């Protein structure tokens, strides 16, 4: 449906905003582009829309090359990062504008508008001008303006960036429902990982203009491709402990300065600098402990209340360590079991995942 091949953009001032991005989307799929500010998400989206000319690479829609064809011929619905509602038109006129040149008769236009108006609950806003509305309302209209047509592709640039949390997940659901109903392929940009997890069929994580990892929410969360993704996803992110690999024949250890954790057998050369990663919710607080299992011992410094759970801040010989727990622990020593199947090992130097 949508294919990007080695897409790159170097701005005239020399900024390499996007460097060789390749990805594809199946019909009806919702891709989320996730990454920190300035990583090239907007630029990528704009190249797909035809608002920016790529310096290299190509864009295809339905197998048809559109890299340099005008935006107006691509049949795309775009929601801009900062609404871009036409200030000189009422909300109704704003919603009607995208329909006026697609050859719909008045009746069908009205029907399409009524549909989004009810979906988004904006009936009471139709006669106002954008400047009279709150940020959240403007954002809704912007969403509505894209949803009023059924284009080949939705491109969303942080469409919910400025809305309060509660309303935000409502709108997210509204949009997702409509998107699923209409089966419109969507590329959704956000830097909010929670939003990414909630919406995405596939998440594409970008950094410095490059894709670092691509996969289902499950894949990117559980099997981060590198230290960056491991740290970036999840709140709090993965526990990352630096150490060394000790291969002693029948047993292997992960050694930090002050501790040694026994490890399952993996093909890693002896003495390599390794970073051990494990998510706070994947470790369990256990006493007593099986001797052979990988574990860490630490002292509880603080319990952070998170509503339905606690995050325990531990001091371990390997450094600070976070544990998710159902109960608060105010002090004392405790053992933390590190489940073999949940451990991620990264090469400290390259950041790449080893196992």
């Amino acid at each position: 449906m949508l294919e990007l091949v080695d897409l790159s953009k170097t701005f005239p001032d020399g900024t390499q905003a996007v460097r060789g991005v390749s990805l594809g989307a199946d019909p009806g799929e919702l891709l989320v582009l996730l990454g920190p500010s300035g990583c090239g998400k907007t630029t990528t989206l704009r190249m797909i829309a035809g608002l920016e000319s790529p310096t290299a690479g190509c864009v295809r829609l339905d197998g048809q090359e559109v890299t340099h064809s005008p935006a107006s011929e691509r049949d795309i619905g775009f929601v801009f990062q900062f609404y871009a509602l036409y200030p000189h038109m009422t909300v109704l006129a704003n919603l009607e504008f995208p329909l006026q040149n697609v050859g719909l008769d008045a009746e069908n236009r009205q029907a399409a508008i009524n549909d989004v108006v009810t979906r988004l609950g904006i009936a009471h806003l139709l006669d106002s001008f954008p400047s009279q509305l709150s940020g959240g309302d403007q954002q809704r209209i912007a969403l509505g303006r894209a949803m009023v047509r059924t284009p080949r592709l939705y491109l969303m640039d942080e469409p919910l960036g400025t809305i309060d949390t509660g309303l935000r997940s409502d709108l997210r659901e509204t949009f997702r429902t409509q998107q699923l109903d209409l089966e419109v392929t969507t590329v959704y940009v956000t830097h909010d990982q929670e939003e990414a997890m909630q919406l995405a069929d596939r998440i594409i994580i970008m950094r410095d203009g490059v894709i670092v990892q691509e996969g289902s929410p499950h894949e990117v969360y559980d099997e981060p491709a590198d230290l960056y993704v491991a740290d970036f996803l999840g709140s709090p992110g993965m526990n990352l402990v630096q150490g060394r690999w000790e291969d002693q024949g029948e047993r292997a250890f992960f050694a930090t300065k002050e501790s040694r954790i026994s490890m399952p057998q993996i093909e890693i050369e002896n003495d390599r600098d390794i970073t051990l990663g494990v998510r706070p919710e994947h470790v369990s607080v256990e006493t007593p402990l099986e001797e052979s299992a990988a574990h860490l011992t630490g002292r509880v410094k603080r319990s952070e209340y998170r509503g339905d759970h606690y995050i325990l801040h531990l001091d371990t010989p390997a450094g600070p360590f976070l544990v998710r727990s159902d109960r608060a622990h105010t002090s004392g020593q405790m053992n933390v079991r590190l489940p073999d199947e949940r451990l991620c090992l990264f090469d400290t130097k390259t950041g790449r995942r080893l196992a």
Partner: protein
Amino acid sequence: MTAYGEGAIIRAARNDVLGRDGKYGWPQSDCWNSTLIPHENDHLKYAFVGPALLLLIALNIFPLFYSLFLSFTNAELSGGAATFVGTANYSTVFSTPRFATAMRTTATFVCLAVAIEVSLGYALALCFRAPFRGKSVMLAVLLVPMMLSPAVVGLYWNVILNGNYGILNQILGALGAGQPQWLTDPDLKLYSLLLIDVWMWTPFAMLISLAGLNAIPGHLYEAAQIDRASRWTVFRRITLPLSFPLVALAALFRTTDALKLFDQVMAVTGPNDEATQTLSALLYQVIFRNYKMGQGSAYAMVVLVIVIALSTIFVRHIQTFQTRHGRAA
């Protein structure tokens, strides 16, 4: 997907995409590294800017060259055949005293006008900084003169400056200051024109200076107050230097404009009055009263060299001004 590092990722990503059971079915394409083709078609942007620029070229660039050509001929206003006369016209320009006189008159006028208008305007702007009642009405009234037609203003000032019944002399008379003949005394005529110009354009310098003053951040003054700087120091070290770029802008605007002085001359003293014959008035006299088009063109070329030199300075100032204020030209 375990590759990291740019090249690896790109390759991996592409393989990944390509390898998905042919789901995307890439047709092999030559689109890699395609050259930068702006997807807006090129004709469109020239359609936007073209008409205006063509008109400007037709009305400015072409005449300049044509003028240059005419300046080497003895063409007459009435038409008829013109012959090539070499540099004779230019010899005339530089040998006739009236060109030197016109240069001197124009230079005197420009220097005095700009100096008075800018300093008076700046002083007024300093007074206008603080808010007070009726400020906006006062500003509005002051701005009226510069919106009026200089020719019409010139005509009307005849009533004010008239030696017998003019209001100015009535007031001066009441003050016991005599009855200067503003419009007929050769020593005063140029100053009458100057007076009109100052009346019209001082508010212009004031308006721009005021913008410069208002743009000075208030915290600088607070800092100066903490440092116990004297009012004079504050003015010399903060107010003046920070508002200077805009004051210079006002001065340059006025210079290029005063250089063209013609309308008021025509309306007050006429083009051939030796005491007030500016360069433009001289050009008018040569071309339209003496009918010497070729010679007039030679005069025009010399005047243009001066004007273009000055306006280049002006344009430079605007360029640096704009870059410093962070707006691309």
